């Protein structure tokens, strides 16, 4: 990535990547504890009905206080992950503002979605009692979207009002987490594979086995996201993660990880907060997310992301409408807007993840030719063929996976 591309449409990649990265680091470090403390309190107080207003997402996250309080509101409320959309800055109009301009719909966009489990704990006391939550669209990762679908906590999307949904990438149609495709549209997608610092490893890494190389003892990391860590390890053991239906099938991956943890091979399990450790060499090699690593690599070329030979996991963060949302039609208009390749390209150039919208590459080509050739943002078919999504797990099986994983990561 150079910073001097003659591109009138966006700020230089180096700058925007840096700002996104810094935001992610802060979100990862502080979000983990700072946000979960109030959430913990909210969970403790879930028995008290009067606590419901305090646990409402958005207000708890320190966003603008309840503009949508009571009654129908004409606006749209989208609660998304931090730094996951192009903002209005440096003379560029962000997607939210472009949407408001194009449709006249008032949008409240917050970034209080920091962690799937934590967010679930926040909405559970409300949606579990058939009470609506404030946001009209939330952004759970596909497995959580699947759980919400199973629990019947989501509204069906009025897909006839989203003609651009036809632009959904072919490989994401009727996905395993939403077999009928009625409840969710992906927001962004990406991969978990191996991230490493070649200055520390001293060699190119190609295989998951390198995570378990004694040479890197105490300098290995892994993600706290169970499906990505277990997924990558399981694939290296020849387990097909897209068809898992029982814990026994994935047992070898858990055993392998347990052994590495007990021997001190793994230094720590991390969420979004591994950039510094990887960049300064505390971690030599870890399981990481493609878009993040691409952002670090712009600052520190020694940091690299590889699709392991045995394959990478693919994930998707979705847009779903929680049950009882007030502005379903506005939500449909929003989805239609961001599924227009011209609009989606603006988001892609800023966030650097893989867009779920077909035809984005052509639009990105016009904005940022370098990015259009970035294999992490526009992977070729061979790479795509070597990625797998984690199978949707039934409630009981998922409980087994979660318990076993949490025993390993030491919680």
């Amino acid at each position, binding site marked *: 990535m150079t910073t001097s591309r003659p591109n009138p449409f966006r700020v230089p990649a180096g700058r925007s990547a840096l700002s996104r990265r810094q935001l992610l680091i802060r979100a990862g470090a502080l979000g983990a504890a700072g946000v979960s403390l109030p959430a913990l309190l909210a969970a403790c107080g879930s028995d008290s009905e009067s606590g419901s207003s305090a646990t409402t997402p958005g207000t708890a996250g320190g966003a603008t206080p309840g503009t949508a309080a009571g009654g129908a509101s004409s606006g749209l409320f989208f609660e998304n992950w931090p730094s996951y959309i192009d903002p209005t800055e440096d003379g560029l109009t962000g997607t939210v503002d472009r949407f408001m301009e194009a449709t006249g719909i008032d949008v409240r966009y917050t970034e209080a979605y920091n962690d799937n489990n934590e967010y679930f704990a926040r909405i559970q006391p409300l949606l579990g009692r058939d009470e609506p939550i404030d946001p009209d669209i939330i952004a759970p990762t596909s497995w959580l979207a699947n759980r919400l679908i199973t629990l019947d906590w989501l509204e069906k999307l009025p897909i006839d009002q989203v003609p651009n949904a036809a632009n959904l990438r072919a490989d994401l149609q009727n996905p395993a987490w939403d077999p009928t495709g009625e409840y969710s549209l992906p927001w962004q997608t990406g991969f978990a594979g191996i991230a490493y610092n070649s200055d520390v490893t001293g060699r190119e890494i190609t295989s998951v086995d390198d995570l378990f190389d004694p040479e890197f003892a105490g300098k290995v990391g892994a993600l706290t996201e169970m499906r990505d860590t277990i997924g990558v390890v399981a694939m290296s053991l020849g387990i097909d993660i897209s068809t898992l239906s029982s814990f026994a099938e994935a047992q070898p991956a858990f055993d392998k990880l347990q052994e590495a943890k007990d021997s001190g091979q793994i230094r720590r399990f991390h969420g979004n907060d591994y950039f*510094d450790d990887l960049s300064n060499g505390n971690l030599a090699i870890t399981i990481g997310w493609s878009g993040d690593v691409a952002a670090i690599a712009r600052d520190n070329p020694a940091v690299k992301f590889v699709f392991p030979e045995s394959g990478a996991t693919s994930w998707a963060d979705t847009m779903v409408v929680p049950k009882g949302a007030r502005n379903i039609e506005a939500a449909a208009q929003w989805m239609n807007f961001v599924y227009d390749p011209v609009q989606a390209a603006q988001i892609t150039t800023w966030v650097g993840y893989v867009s779920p919208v077909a035809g984005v590459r052509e639009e990105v080509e016009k904005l940022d030719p370098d990015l259009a050739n970035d294999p992490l943002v526009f992977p070729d078919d061979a790479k795509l063929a070597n990625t797998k999504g984690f199978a949707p797990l039934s409630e009981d099986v998922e409980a087994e996976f979660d318990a076993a994983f949490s025993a390993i990561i030491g919680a």
Partner: protein
Amino acid sequence: MTTAVEDVSTESNGVKRPELIGLGALVGAGALLVAVGTRLLTGPFAIIGLSLVFASILALVVVAVTGTPESRRKIAPYGLLKPGMLWLALFYLAPLFTLLRLSLSTLPSRFAVDAEFDWNFGNYAEAFTDFGPQFQRAFLYAGIATVLTIAIGYPLAYVIAFRGGKYRTLLLGLVVIPFFTSYLIRTIAWRSLLSDQGQFMSVINTLQLDWLLETLQIMDDGRLINTPAAVIFGLTYNFLPFMILPIYVSLEKIDVRLLDAAKDLYSTSTAAFAKVVVPLSIPGIFAGTLLTFIPAAGDFVNSLYLGSPNTTMIGNSIQDQFLVQNNVPLASAMSFVLMFIITVFVLIYSKFFGTEDLA
């Protein structure tokens, strides 16, 4: 109390034994608040209950205003206890009871909102069997950290109290000032200070002290961070002022003439310190230990940011069960086990070190 009973016959205004009425109103109002707080009383019953609580407060005020001086005197202690008692009933006893009930409940399904109460002692069995190492680590780390805070805090408090002179306030302020910054921020900052490329490591590498620190098990695999020592260090650092301040208060109260007297009686400085200063400062050490050990045993922040997967403490596990596994009954049982063990520790400790002053 005995004098109050003797006074009964001399009551003049017809109200017999007002102190019993005061006690009854206190306990009754507390019990009612607990019942409302735990939702044993709901709907109209809760409203009636709260009205009774309010009425008892009103009655106290009426007695205080209209009663004879004698009945006022007897009822006063109960009136003064009331705000604190009601506060504790609503914000301590009711949540504690709710937690106890939850810890004996079962979730009908994994993502159910409400657990069903069914005397499920299995949660306790699970808390003991599955989280033994985390409990052990929590008490081990908290114990070592507490000893370290005494070792570091006592001399510091001593110097400030006896040698601080006019700078006492300033020195105390310096102890406290770093803690104006958020607990989280300070802990996260230590992460970069202790990191492999951090200032501490570069000093250690320059002085080639790593073999020593490895032998002392402070370093592990050539690193300071993500080790048990880092977690204990974080706990020590974060709880140090809670040790220094109580010790300072107890030392500051000591009359220096006692030391002069000891010397007049041919005591050496060491003996005077051991026989005069230390015994008189024990209440401070005791209070500091409670303020340090109890929160440290339940802490999860230091282990989260400075530890590794092999240093997790019980606080991390409880947080994980509440927020990731959604297993509220198990998490409640774990919290109770933690509280129980801490209570036992504190009781044993106060048996040996507790003083009349503090009881």
